[in-house]
C-alpha cells in the first residue's frame, strides 16, 4: 500500500487500534506500516501495512530494519480487487492485471516460516479474506463479508468486528 487513500488510512488506523487492544500485550507486538519484513531466501524485503510479532522480534544479521518473524500480516488492498475466482487462474497475466491484481506480497511472504495468517482487507467493500497456515505448506482460507460479521484470527485469539475494522470508512468514495 503506497499513496494511501483516506479510506485506507482509516482502515489502517482502525486495525492498529483493534490489534493493539486485542493482542498487543506482552506475548505479541503490533507494528505498523514502515517496518521491513526481510525475506532472506529472496534477498529482498516487503513492507506490510500491519504486522504482529510473537515474542521478541528476530532480526536478519542483527540489522534492526530487517525483521524476520511476523506471525500475522495485514494487507489493505489498494483498489477494487476481485475476490476468489477459480476461473481467474486461466487468465493470462495481462488480463489478470486488468482485473486488478494484488501486490504479490502474499506469494513472497508464504516462505516465512513464522507466518501463520495473512489477511487481505478490501477497501471498496466490507470484506476480509484470511489465509491461515493449516499445515506447513498448506493454507486454508476463510472470508468474511458485511459489517455484521467478525474476523477471528487464526492465532492471537483476536476477534475483530468488521464494524470496527471499517469504522468511518466511506464506501461511496471513489478510489
Amino acid at each position, binding site marked *: 500500500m503506497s499513496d494511501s487513500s483516506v479510506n485506507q488510512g482509516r482502515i489502517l488506523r482502525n486495525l492498529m487500534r483493534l490489534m493493539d487492544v486485542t493482542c498487543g500485550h506482552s506475548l505479541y507486538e503490533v507494528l505498523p506500516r514502515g517496518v521491513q519484513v526481510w525475506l532472506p*531466501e529472496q534477498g529482498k524485503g516487503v513492507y506490510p501495512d500491519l504486522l504482529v510479532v510473537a515474542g521478541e522480534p528476530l532480526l536478519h544479521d542483527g540489522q534492526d530494519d530487517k525483521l524476520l518473524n511476523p506471525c500475522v500480516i495485514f494487507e489493505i488492498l489498494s483498489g477494487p480487487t476481485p475476490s476468489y475466482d*477459480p476461473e481467474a487462474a486461466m*487468465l493470462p497475466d495481462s488480463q489478470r492485471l486488468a482485473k486488478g491484481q494484488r501486490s504479490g506480497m502474499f*506469494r513472497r511472504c508464504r516462505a516465512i516460516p513464522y507466518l501463520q495468517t495473512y489477511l487481505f482487507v478490501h477497501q471498496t467493500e466490507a470484506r476480509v479474506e484470511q489465509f491461515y*497456515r*493449516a*499445515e*506447513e505448506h*498448506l493454507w*486454508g482460507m476463510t472470508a468474511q463479508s458485511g459489517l455484521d460479521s467478525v474476523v477471528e484470527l487464526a492465532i492471537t485469539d483476536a476477534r475483530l468486528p468488521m464494524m470496527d475494522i471499517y469504522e468511518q470508512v466511506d464506501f461511496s468514495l471513489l478510489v
Partner: protein
Amino acid sequence: MDMVEAIDQAKTRVQELCDRWGPRVDYLAIRLEQSEGTDIFLRGGQAETLSEAIAIGGHVRACYRGGWGFASFNDLESLAPCVEAAVAAARLVGHDETLLAPVAPVQVTRRLPLTGTDPRQISLARKKALCNHYADLLQGIDHRIATTSVRYNDVAQRVLLATSEGTLIDQAWSDMEMRFAATARDGDTVQTGRETTGSRKAYEDLEDLDDQVMGAAQRAVAALDLPSVRGAAYDVVIDPILTGLFVHEAFGHLSEADMAYENPDLLESMSLGRRFGPDSLQIFDGAAPQGHRGSYFYDDEGTPATTTQLIENGVLVGRLHSRETAGKLGEQPTGNARCLNYHYSPLVRMTNTWIERGTTPVDDLFADIKEGVYARNWLEGMTNGEMFTFTAGEAWMIRNGKLAEPVRDVTLSGNVFRTLADIEAIGDDFYWDESGGCGKGGQNGLPVGCGGPSLRIRNVVVGGEAEAEYE
C-alpha cells in the same frame, strides 16, 4: 519419578476417579499421556533447534446432557481437581441430550509394533549427524542453492485412556518424520524443492534417503531455467503423491462428519448415496491397516480403529466420525476421534486415506492426450471449502500422448466435486505417502498417511502462478 512408573501407578487412580465422578455425568474420560521426543532443525547446515524433551500430562472430558467440560493438566497432582472442574463445567453447560454412539468397553494394552530400531535407542548426536549429512547433500548439488533446511522429529507416545464406561486402554507408538527443502536462486528467480518422509516402523526408514533428498535440490536448480506453464484448462495426469494430497486435502476433510454437522450446506452436498465419480473410484480411510503414519489400535475415545469406505463405485457411502457425530447423525462410529496431544480435545480426523489402485497401465494414462500436463509431488497448497489449489513439485507438458518438455509454476485448481467427476482413468500403480502432518482446529502436524495411484483428470485449470486465483 520415572514416567513409565508414573503412568502405571496412575492406572488405579484414574479408574477410581472414573468410578467416583462418572455417576455425576453421562460420560467421563481421562486421558494420560507421556511422550519422549527429539527435534532437530538445521538451516543452511547450522543447527537452529536441537532438543530432546520428555513430557507428561493429561486431560479430562466430561459430557452431561450434551454439554462438554474439558480440563488439561501437566502434573499428575492436578488430576483430581481437573476431573472435578471438567464435571462441573459439563453440568453447567449441558441442557440437552447426550448423544454418543455406543462402543463396547475394553481393557487392553497394545503397542504399535516396530519393524526396526526404536528412535529412542539412537543418540541425539547420531540423529544430528544424519541431518548434517542430508544438509550437505542438498547444499552440494549446485552453487545456486541459496539455502537449505533439514528437520527431524521423533516422538514416542504412551497414552492411557480410562472412561466411566469401564474402558481402560494402554496404547503406545513411535512416530518419526523428516523434512527437506532447498531453495535455489538466480538473480530474481527463486525456486524451491522439497521432500518429506515419515515412519511409524523404524529409524532405518529415515536412513539411505540420499537420492530422494538430492532430488529436492536438483528440482530447485533445474526449475530456475524452466519456462512457466501457459495457463489454461488441460487434461492432466498426476502422480500418486498428488493423488494422496488431493484425496486428503480436497476430499477427505469434507468427509469429516463434524465439518458437515456444523455446516448444513456441506451436509447436503455430502449426502450419502450421491454420485461423485466414475464407477471405478473407491476411496477409503482407516487406522486399521498397519504400518502407516495414521495407524493405531484405538482412537482417543476408545473406539477401535476401522477401515471406512467413503466412496464405493463412485458413490458416497460413508463418512468419518467421533462418537458424538455418529450419535447425532445416527451412524456407526468409525474410530476417527484423535487429538494431537493432551492439550486438546479429540476432533474428527483422518488417519490413512487412500484411493484404491485402478486397472489402467500408467503409460496408457497419457495416451490420446494431445496437449496436457503431467504433475508430480507438491510444494504448496490452498483449500477453501470445496475449492483447492495445489502447486506441483515438478511438471512436464504432455504432447500427443508423450511426455514432452518440463515446465514450472504449475498450479492445479478446481472444485473437488467437479474434479472427482472428471477422473477419466485410474492407474494400476500405488504409493503410500507417509509425509503426514495434517492440521485442523489448531491441532497441526498430526501424523496421517495418504495413498493412491496415478490419475488422469480432464479439464483441470492449470495456472502459471500459485496465487493467481486467490489474489
